[in-house]
């Protein structure tokens, strides 16, 4: 079973890297860029085919390591 975990900064947390990317996009004349926030994507393959078990495992993975919940939110998508 495949899953994708997305980790993003919480609202209000400064993102200097996102700001730098935003500035670079504007300098490239990409039209209409208002703001950029940088995050992380993890593609994870799980041995289980049980969706509930996969959700529990991925939540634990996020809480224990993938996200620092002081500054980050996470989102789990489970695919086929």
């Amino acid at each position, binding site marked *: 079973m495949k899953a994708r975990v997305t980790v993003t900064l919480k609202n209000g*947390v*400064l993102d*200097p890297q996102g700001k730098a990317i935003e500035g670079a996009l504007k300098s490239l004349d990409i039209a209409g860029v208002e703001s950029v926030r940088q995050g*992380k994507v993890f593609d994870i393959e799980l041995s289980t085919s049980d969706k509930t078990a996969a959700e529990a495992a991925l939540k634990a993975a996020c809480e224990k*390591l*993938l996200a620092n919940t*002081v*500054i980050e939110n996470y989102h789990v998508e489970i695919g086929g």
Partner: protein
Amino acid sequence: MKAAVITFPGSNRDGDVAKALKQAGAAVTHVWHADTELPAGTDLVVLPGGFSYGDYLRTGAIAGRAHIMDATRAHAARGGYVLGICNGFQIACEAGLLPGILVRNAHLKFVCRRQHLTVERNDTPYTRAYAKGQVIDVCIAHGEGNYIADAETLARLEGEGLVAFRYADASGKVTAEANPNGSLNNIAGIYSPGFNVLGLMPHPENLIDSLVGGTDGRGLFESLVAAKAA
């Protein structure tokens, strides 16, 4: 004073901090991150500077979950001393030993230079050899030293006097210009509520010998050794 210096893959200041501790009179053992127990009689655990796991995921995140950190948390819970320097401060935050987190410097540049700090209080095991409010001259070398915490945590740190050091200018003024990385309230280091855990971004172990430019870092190690003897 029996000190255990933990070496993680990518630690590179473990030798320097061991030298500083030995100079102050501590007995030092080096401990590998995959070990599950601290040496018997350990008084102080040191999480040294460096780039553990290449700073992958988040600085200190993977090292913060190493096997030895369970023993380190138990040691801290018993009131044992834990000192995290630079990457060690990042590891201590990721391991839940200290609140908040260190993120990318606000200006995005790695900073490597001398830096003045104010010693916020001198009634702790780490700072008795200094004067309250003393300005010390140490080194900083980091890309992710920007300390942030939520408003409630920050208010608690300030209210309970848990800020150990602040970035300042040479006269001891805590100003925005003297802040090298954007840290909230110019915070360079913080204590746990029991004052037994200290995390700081600057490197006191760099300045322990006048031969290399200064000795202002010595006081921290001498304070610790004296605290154990007291």
